[in-house]
C-alpha cells in the first residue's frame, strides 16, 4: 500500500510516496538514492544497510519505513570526507572491497559520540553485527582507536552526544519554516559524477 511519508533524511525533510511497511533500506536506497545503504543480507545480520536513527545505529533492512517517519535518519552520505572517522578509516586502510564500510563508519560515529575513549570490549560490542567478509576487522579497530585519539575533532564534527540530532533537527525545522516545501532531492554531500571514461 503506497502512502505519503515525510522522511527526515540527513537534515532535510523529504516527501516520498512509499509503502510504510517497506524496509527503510529500500526507501532510502532505491527511492532516495542513498547508495551507501546497501542491502546485503536482508535479515539484520551484516550491518551493510546501517543508518543512524535518532543517533543510534539501526539495520534499515529490518525497520519499516513508516516507523522511521518523524525520526532523524542519517546515512553515510551526510558525512563529509573530512569527517575524522572517515579520515581515520582512510588513513588506517580500514577497507578492502568497501561494501560493508559505510555501516562500520556510522556505528563508529555513534560509539564515539557516547564514549570518547572506548576500550576494546566497547569497540567490539559496538561493531558486533557488522560483517566484513574481506576480513578488515583488525584495521577497522585501528581506525576506531585512531579516530578516538582525535576525539576533540570528532566532537566538533559529529556532535558530542546530542550534537547530530540537534543540528539535523534544526535543519529540518528551518526547511519547514520556509513554507513547508521539503526539498525534492535525494542526495547531499555526494561528489560523484556521471559514468564514462575518466580519461
Amino acid at each position, binding site marked *: 500500500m*503506497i502512502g505519503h*511519508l515525510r522522511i527526515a533524511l540527513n537534515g532535510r525533510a*523529504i516527501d*516520498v*510516496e512509499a509503502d510504510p511497511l*517497506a524496509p527503510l533500506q529500500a*526507501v532510502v536506497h*532505491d*527511492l*532516495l538514492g542513498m*547508495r*551507501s*545503504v*546497501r542491502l*546485503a*543480507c*536482508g*535479515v539484520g*545480520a*551484516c550491518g551493510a544497510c546501517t543508518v543512524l536513527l535518532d543517533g543510534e545505529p539501526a539495520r534499515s533492512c529490518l525497520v519499516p519505513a513508516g516507523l522511521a517517519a518523524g525520526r532523524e535518519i542519517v546515512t*553515510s*552520505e551526510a558525512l563529509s570526507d573530512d569527517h575524522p572517522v*572517515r579520515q581515520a*578509516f*582512510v588513513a588506517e*586502510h580500514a*577497507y*578492502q*572491497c*568497501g*561494501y*560493508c*564500510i*559505510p555501516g562500520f563508519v556510522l556505528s563508529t560515529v555513534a560509539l564515539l559520540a557516547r564514549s570518547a575513549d572506548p576500550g*576494546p*570490549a566497547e569497540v*567490539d560490542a559496538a*561493531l*558486533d*553485527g*557488522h*560483517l*566484513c*567478509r*574481506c*576480513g*578488515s*576487522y583488525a*584495521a577497522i579497530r585501528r581506525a576506531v582507536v585512531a579516530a578516538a585519539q582525535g576525539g576533540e575533532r570528532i566532537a566538533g564534527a559529529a556532535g558530542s552526544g546530542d550534537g547530530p540530532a540537534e543540528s539535523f533537527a534544526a535543519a529540518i525545522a528551518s526547511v519547514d519554516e520556509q513554507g513547508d516545501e521539503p526539498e*525534492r*532531492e*535525494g542526495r547531499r554531500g*555526494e561528489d*560523484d559524477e*556521471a*559514468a*564514462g*571514461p*575518466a*580519461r
Partner: protein
Amino acid sequence: MTGTFEANPLRDEGFAGWAATADLDAEPRERVGGRLRYAIDTELPGMAFGAIVRSPVAAGRLAAVDVGAAEGVAGVVRVISGADVAAAGLAGARFGSLGDQPILATERVTHVGEPVAIVVAETAETARRAAKLVRLEVTESTPVLTADEALAEGAPIVREGRPDNVLSRWARSHGDVEAARARSARVFRARFSSPAAQQASLEPHVCLATWRDGRLEVWSTSQSPSRATEDLATLFGLEPGTVAVRVPPLGGGYGGKNQTKLEPLVAFAARATGRPVKVVNDRADEFVTVTKHAASVEIESGVDAAGRFTFRTATIRWSAGAYALSSVAVARAGGLAVLGPYRIPAASVESTMAWTNVPPAGSFRGLGVSQAAWAGEQQVDEIARAIEADPVDFRRANLVRSGERLWTGERVADAHWVECLDAAVGRLEVARSDGVSAAASATPAAVVRHGTGVAVAMKHTITPSRSEAEVALLADGCVEVRTSAVDMGQGVEVVLARIAADALALPVDRIVVARPDTARTPFDMTTSSSRATFAVGNAVEAAARDLVDRAIEAASIAAGIPPDRLDWGPDGIREARTGWQRTLRELAAAGPGDGLVGRATFVNEPERDAETGEPVSSSHWHQGAVAVDASVDVETGIVRVEALAGAAWAGRVVNGPGARLQNEGNLTFGLGPALSEALEFPAGSPSATDLLDYRLTAIRDLPWALETVALEGSVGDGVDGHPERHGLGESLIPGVAPALANAVADATGARVRRLPISPERLLAVLDE
C-alpha cells in the same frame, strides 16, 4: 512497488554506473564514503529485471514448466524456460570449465537451485513475485548427496555419460611407499573431513546485459571477464570483438565469482526480450549458486626412529556438486598440498572428484588446500605429540629447504616454510605480550584450558597461465595501465599502478588503471589463485618496458638521434650529451595514430626439473605459517582465539598496507570455516540460506592480540636481482583451521576431525 520519488539519482537516463578507469587517489575516500559503484549499481535506460526460477529438488525429470500464471502478472515482460532456449537452437549449448552447463535446465534437474526459468519484468519485485507462480512438474529421482554415496557401487548416475560419477581423478606417487612403510618406526593413520561452505561475498552475483547492433555488452561480477567473454562468444556464435564484459569493483569475490554463471542466462533473456536485463541474486540464491567442496581425507604417515618422515599417502574424496566449475583444479590443488611441504622420500596421493546432486562447488579462497591442510597439518601434530616431539621442532626438522625435493619428486627452488614458521611463532610471542583482551572471561578458570597450535600451508599458483597488459601514454602525459585483472578489494589496481610507476620511473599519481572491459582491455586468464600481483604484475612491468622502447624509437626517428643515445625519464626522452628533450606530453602528441602503447604477454610456463625432465607443479608456491593461542571452556565447548599470528612469503612487497590487509584478512577469513561456517545438504537443500543460519567471522571472534608479517627476500635474489613478487591472497588461510584444532588438542587432548570446531562437536569429542 516500494513507492516513487521523482529525483532518484540512480535512475538518471543513460547512467550505467560504470567508470572505465579507477581514480586511485579518490578511491579510498569513495570506498569509505560508500560512493564506489559496484555492478549492483549499474543501470541502463529501459532496463528490465530478471528473477530466476529454480529447481526445488535435487534430482529428477523435468516434465513441464508452466509459465502461464506468471506471464499473466501485470508488469511481466516475458517468462523464459528451457523450451525458449531450445526454440532458439541453443538446447545443446553448454558453457563452463568442462562444457557441462546449459543456459537453463531442460528434461533433467540435477541440484536444488538449478535454474529452470527466468521471469523478466518491469521491476525486480514483480519478477520475484511472478517467479513464484511458475509451476514445475518434476518426477523426483534418488539424489546422490555426498562423494561417498556417489562413488559407491551401484550409485545413481548424476551426469549422463559418466556412470562412475567420477568428474576427475588426480593421482601422483614418488618413491617406494611399501618399502618405506616396512622401515618405519611408527605408522599413523587418520581420517579428517570438511563440510561445504559458501563464499558469502556481501555483494551477491550480479549481471546486466544488453544487445546493441548485434553486439553483446555485459556488466558482471566476474573474476574472469576474459573467460566469460569467450564463453558468451562461443554460446551465441559471436565474432571475437563483439562481446564486451565489464567488471566494476567487486563487493567481495573469494573465488565464488571465478566462473561464468549468470552471464549466459541474462544475455539470453536480454536477446529474447530486446531489453537490457539485470539479475541480482538474493542471499538464498547465493547458497545454491556456488559453494566450497565438501571433502574427506584418509591420510597415512610413517616416521623413523629419528622422527623423520619415511612416507606419506593420502586419499581424498571431494563432492563437486552437479556442475564442474573449478573442480578439476581443486582436486589437483588439494592433492598437491595434502602431504605438506616436507621431506618425504616416498609418497602417493589419489584425489577423486565426484559428481553429486548438490549445488556446484567452485573456487573458495584457499582452493582445496584448506580441506587438505585440515588433514595433513593435524596429522603432523598428532605424530609430533605421539613421538613426544615439539610440534614446531618436528616441522622444522622435516620441512623442505630451497633446492630440496617436494614429495612429488620435483625440486623446489624457493622454499621459505622454515622462515615462515619461525616468524609466525615469533609473532605470536609479540601478539601475546602487547595484545589486549577484549573481554575478561567470566568463566571460572577451572573449566578453561589453554593451548597453542601451529600449521604451515603450501598452495600452488595456476601453471601455466597467461596475462596480457598494455601500458599506454596518454595525451596529458599520464600513463594508462590496461589489464583485465579484477579489483575485488585486494588492491590489485594499486599494485599494478606501482609496478608500472617503478618500471617507468614515474610518480604513481601519473598512472591510471583501466577497469576490466574486454572490448578494450587485453586477455587475462583469471583473477584468482593469488596470481595477479605475480602474473599480471609481470605483464605490466614488461609492457611498461615495451612502452619505453617504443617511445625511444619514436623519438629517435623524429629527432634523428640513434636510440642508444636516448634515455627515458620522468620528464620524457632525453639525450644526455646534447640536452635534447621531448616531454611525455609532446611524445604522446607526436606518436602514431593509436598513441604510444607498450604491450606484453606473461606466461608462467612450468620449468622442467633438471634431473627428471618433468615440469614442476607450480611456478612458485604460496607459503605461510599460522600460530595460535586458544582457550577452551570444557563445559560449554566454546573455543576462544586468544592470540593469532601469521607469516607469509611475499618475496617482494609492492604495497605494504595492502600486504598487511591480505595477511590479516587471511587469518580472519580462515576463522570462519574453522569456528562456525558449514553448509550441509540434507535431502539436497542447503542447511542455511541466510547469514543468520550461516555465521561468518564477526569482529568478536578475532583477538586483538594479532600479528602478521609478509616476509621479503633480499636484493640480489631472484632472476634479475629482485625477489619475485608473490600474491598474498591465500597464503595463510589453509593454516588457520588446523592450527586452531592443534591448539584445542594441546589444551584438552581432544582432537576435532570434522570442521567446524563448533561447541557441539568439541563437546562430543571431549566426551569420547
